[in-house]
């Protein structure tokens, strides 16, 4: 049986050789013309990308702006992104690292495995298995059949792989972490939408809420990370739990709600916690 197949495919390859000899056409000039046109398009696209990248950079197209005499790259993103980011700073506490776009699928894979025990699956396990499977394809699929419609399993697998890679790249590209510096800019919008703009304590609380890492777990008016499954706080005030409850809860969440995984915020001090509570109570949903 296996022997039959080997004989068949050897005969088929001989047939291929003789078919090509009899009915084939020379590589040059027919195929080479197509190859050359395609290559020209490739070079054209590369030059075009380089040009767009440089000349859509705002300002003087250098990717450098001066803020108070300090060189910075802030706001120099053209259509294809910045020319350079700021110089490497191994000591930063405010930078959000992202890989180049073609590693977004790997980046997102790492975000999927958000349990310590499974980290090694995302870093080494799954990528290694995928590469080994990729190498093994010719040995897993040993039939001579090449017509796509006669290879349903291969085609479905291929489509699923392309779809999931595309999906993961998209999710990786749009993955957001809630960083204080970015969220701070949203406070006036929140104040206006939720109608607490006239309450200075709530506004101060909102600023604290933005920078204190609350939104690493909680969602507020569409911002923040829902990855870890903490409740959304947009309409927290509508439950009228009161300032006192909120302060006590912030000091020690698991004392107030048994089994709550939320960390304690007691180190913020009574004054800051009261401001946070004012903000939460003022958040009664968008008006």
């Amino acid at each position: 049986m296996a022997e039959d197949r080997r004989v068949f495919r050897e005969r088929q390859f001989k047939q291929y050789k003789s078919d090509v000899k009899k009915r084939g056409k020379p590589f040059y000039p027919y195929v080479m013309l197509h190859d050359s046109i395609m290559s020209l398009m490739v070079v054209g696209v590369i030059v075009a990308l380089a040009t767009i990248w440089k000349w859509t950079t705002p300002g003087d197209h250098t990717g450098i702006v001066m803020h108070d005499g300090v060189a910075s790259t802030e706001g120099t993103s053209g259509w294809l992104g910045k020319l350079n980011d700021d110089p490497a700073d191994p000591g930063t506490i405010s930078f959000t690292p992202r890989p180049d776009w073609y590693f977004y699928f790997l980046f997102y894979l790492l975000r999927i495995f958000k349990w310590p025990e499974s980290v090694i699956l995302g870093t080494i396990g799954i990528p290694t298995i995928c590469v080994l499977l990729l190498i093994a394809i010719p040995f897993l699929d040993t039939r001579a059949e090449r017509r796509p419609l006669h290879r349903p399993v291969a085609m479905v697998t291929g489509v699923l792989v392309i779809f999931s890679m595309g999906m993961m790249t998209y999710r990786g590209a749009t993955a957001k972490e809630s960083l204080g510096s970015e969220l701070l800019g949203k406070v006036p919008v929140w104040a206006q939408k939720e109608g607490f703009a006239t309450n200075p304590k709530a506004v101060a609380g909102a600023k604290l809420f933005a920078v204190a890492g609350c939104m690493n777990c909680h969602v507020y008016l569409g911002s923040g990370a829902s990855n870890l499954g903490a409740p959304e706080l947009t309409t927290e005030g509508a439950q009228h739990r009161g300032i006192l409850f909120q302060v006590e809860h912030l000091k020690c969440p698991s004392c107030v709600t048994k089994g709550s995984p939320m960390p304690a915020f007691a180190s913020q001090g009574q004054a800051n916690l009261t401001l946070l509570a004012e903000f939460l109570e003022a958040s009664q949903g968008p008006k």
Partner: protein
Amino acid sequence: MDPRRKTPHVPGPSLWPVGFAIGVAVALLGLVVRWQIIALGIVISLVFGILWIRDAAGRRGITETVEVESEYGPGHPGPTIPPPSTREKYPRSVFLELSTLGVGGVIGGLVTLPALGFMIGPAFLKQGVKDHDLGPVENFPQDSFVVATYMSDPAQGEVSRRTAFVRYNGLLGSQPSFTIISNHCVHLGCPVQPNGPVYDKQSKTFGDVTLIPAKPSGFGCPCHGGQYDSEGNRVAGPPVRALDRYSFSIRNGHLFVGAPYSVAKVEGVGSAAKIHKSAYSYPGEQADGVESWLYPIQPPN
């Protein structure tokens, strides 16, 4: 065996090369662990090497005899003149073949081994962190975090910049107690951010050190969403242990930050905390539990 075959009988595989390779591997391992293991590796590889050579030489002799005998095959009248009673055990061609291989091996070894050592060695030798002065202890208010950035090796410049979250816990006995947490996420090494206000405008700078007061209630990682509490324990997300810490010493009333170490978890807070220490290891490597067995040996540092 088919008697008409002209090709010599190929000897079966020998286990000696495997032992030899294990010896070399042990010696290489010793390079990064300790010298006694190098010696052990050399002894193993020498013993197996000698066995291998003896074995190979013995087989060579047998092979030659087989080849000579099978040249004529059974039933062949054979040479009319009887063969000389003392046959060459090692014919000239075999000698040339072996010496070519040997000379080639020596050349290859002379060129590649030092080059490989040069490529790999410096990454593992003479590692270590010098203590760095973070200024007088009075710079650090009790029970409050200060974000300290400094260059661990000023000669290397900005590339050696480190950030640590330093908290003075008051006196423990007669000695000041500090909690010094690294800013590198133990998931995959991204820079963690303090969850709370950072008072940039109150920063102090001297030499290559900058101290910025902050009020974090924990730390968050901007890459894959790891969250830590104010002792560096994992709260949520993928981090596999608690945040790394730096060792410290007090000299002449100044705080010196030293080498980092890894922490499985911290029980309690501040100066009363019980820290489950382990050797400094790379991010993503468990410091306790079953999965820590995957990383039995850490490079020397």
